[in-house]
């Protein structure tokens, strides 16, 4: 297992990154054009009401003070109040986040289930008809935008065959698996195309590696050669890739949540953007950044668990 000092060092690295992230978010919300007060007011509001809203949002304070307020509030978990939903941003995000995390994990799982076995089949017989077919299908998958995959699945599997519900979110775990199958699959198809590509390449590389030849020369059973020597080594780069594609995954859930009416943070982000709900946009962007950082961190930990060479801090 990775050492504690390694973990600490890795955690410390996050701090300056996060400070920058906060500055980015803050600046980009404040310095660009558009008056949040008008965005939140009804068309019918008077100028005095607008002034009051600006005051309530702290928009009449100087920028550095606003930033300080932003940082201290954020650290205490206070992301302000949503203009659109009239509730604390933290609270809104916390109610919506589990859905998105569920969806993301679900699609990663589907993607691995799809890409894993196929990558093995393809790598076992490089350039065979099967390999070429698998690669071509996934190449097409890579060229399809997530929203389009979603629409196709929606039309065929939900609207016509009625195998799955058209959208929404379930009430129990199993119900969720059923409801979120199509949205998860739309993201998974794209993600699995990336995984397949990478896993196939690293499997081919590992299968040819000297240590696998050596393991075979030792007379080990194919099963042990496969699991202990091939799979584990091929996994290292795939785990890295999975970690790095978390951004893609989040982007994908944003689209798929919109297409399938899944009440997660992705759809919330779009709604917030259309309503110019600045506190909510700010909070959500930060949430996404935290999510991605956590996944990067987890990836590092898993990687250093898999690969002893990475354990030195």
């Amino acid at each position, binding site marked *: 297992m990775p050492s504690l000092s390694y973990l600490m060092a890795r955690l410390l690295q996050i701090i300056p990154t996060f400070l*920058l992230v906060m500055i980015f978010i803050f600046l*980009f*919300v404040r310095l660009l054009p558009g008056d949040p007060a008008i965005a939140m007011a009804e068309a019918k509001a008077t100028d005095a009401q607008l002034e009051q809203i600006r005051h309530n949002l702290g928009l009449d304070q100087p920028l550095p003070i606003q930033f300080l307020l932003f940082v201290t509030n954020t650290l205490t978990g206070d992301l302000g109040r949503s203009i659109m939903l009239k509730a604390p941003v933290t609270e809104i995000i916390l109610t919506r986040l589990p859905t998105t995390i569920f969806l993301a994990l679900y699609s990663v799982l589907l993607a691995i289930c799809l890409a894993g076995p196929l990558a093995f089949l393809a790598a076992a017989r490089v350039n065979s008809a099967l390999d070429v077919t698998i690669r071509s299908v996934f190449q097409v998958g890579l*060229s399809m935008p997530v*929203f389009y995959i979603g629409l196709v699945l929606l039309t065929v599997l939900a609207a016509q065959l009625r195998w799955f519900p058209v959208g929404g979110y379930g009430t129990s775990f199993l119900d969720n698996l059923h409801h979120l199958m199509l949205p998860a699959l739309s993201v998974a198809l794209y993600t699995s195309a990336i995984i397949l590509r990478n896993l196939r390449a690293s499997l081919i590389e590992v299968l040819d590696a000297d240590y696998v030849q050596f393991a075979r020369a030792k007379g080990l059973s194919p099963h042990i050669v496969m699991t202990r020597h091939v799979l584990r080594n091929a996994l290292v780069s795939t785990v890295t890739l999975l970690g790095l594609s978390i951004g893609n995954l*989040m*982007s994908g859930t944003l689209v798929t949540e919109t297409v399938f009416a899944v009440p997660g943070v992705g759809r919330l982000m779009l709604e917030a*953007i259309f309503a110019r709900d600045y506190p909510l946009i700010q909070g959500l*962007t930060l949430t996404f950044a935290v999510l991605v950082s956590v996944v990067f961190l987890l990836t590092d930990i898993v990687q250093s668990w898999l690969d002893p060479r990475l354990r030195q801090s």
Partner: protein
Amino acid sequence: MSIVLQSPSRKASRVNAFIGRAFSRPSFVIGFAILALSIALALFPQLLAPYDPLAFDLSAIQQGPSLAHPFGTDNFGRDVLSRVIWAYRVDMQMAFFATIFALLIGVTVGAFVGYYGGIADTIFGRCVDAIITFPFLVLVIAIVAVLGPGLINMYVAITAVNWVYYARLTRAEIMAQKSNDYAAAGRVLGYSDRRIIFRHLLPNAISPIIVYWMTDMALAILLGSSLGYLGLGAQPPAAEWGVLIAEGRNFLLTAWWMSLMPGIAIVLTGLGFSLVGDALADLLRPKGR
């Protein structure tokens, strides 16, 4: 001197041999053909589209594919084929403009940072860390949200995020090239840093960047059409594949051609870019490592 410094890839015979090898690969030929056709459609939609893409024809609403309208008509009687063809202009533009500035900025920054290293490199590293912490689409739509929807704003938003990826790639390549003999020779001969970077290091570092650019153009189409679909990219009535699919969204079962045809166009074009990109990646990969 010139022997030491000349980058080998510039020799014409090598270029010819390279093109020969490229065209002997079926995947490259298919990809190249798709791209060539796409570019032709993007450049001359007025010659190739049978109808005005914007003209309403209330007598021909939502007609299925026929000889007169091979891709059918939409809910205003507009010819879907013509709209798909005109959309090539917008989408191919997206592929180009959403990436070219990111490439130029990223390569320049990456080259300088990679060559000089030091404090600039450290700051750059931190910025990269911070930017890749945001999911790409989230950051892009957040920027679009603040700037307002539309194509130009979308280019700005994508460029603002995307240059980082080019810069990171270029930096790594330049760092690798920096230690080579010809770079040292350039320094000994007293060439300016700029000349060493742009005349000697970059030409040798450029091939993985070009390969990435190809893939990135495919990604830009995916991203641009997604934004169009979400109402943040190209704006109706302009024809853009994502917008066309969004228009057909309400008629998935009754007028499937409205969303299917632009979808096929996206997949084909994306495939064109990635086939060419993959083939180039294979061909340009250094041998014997």
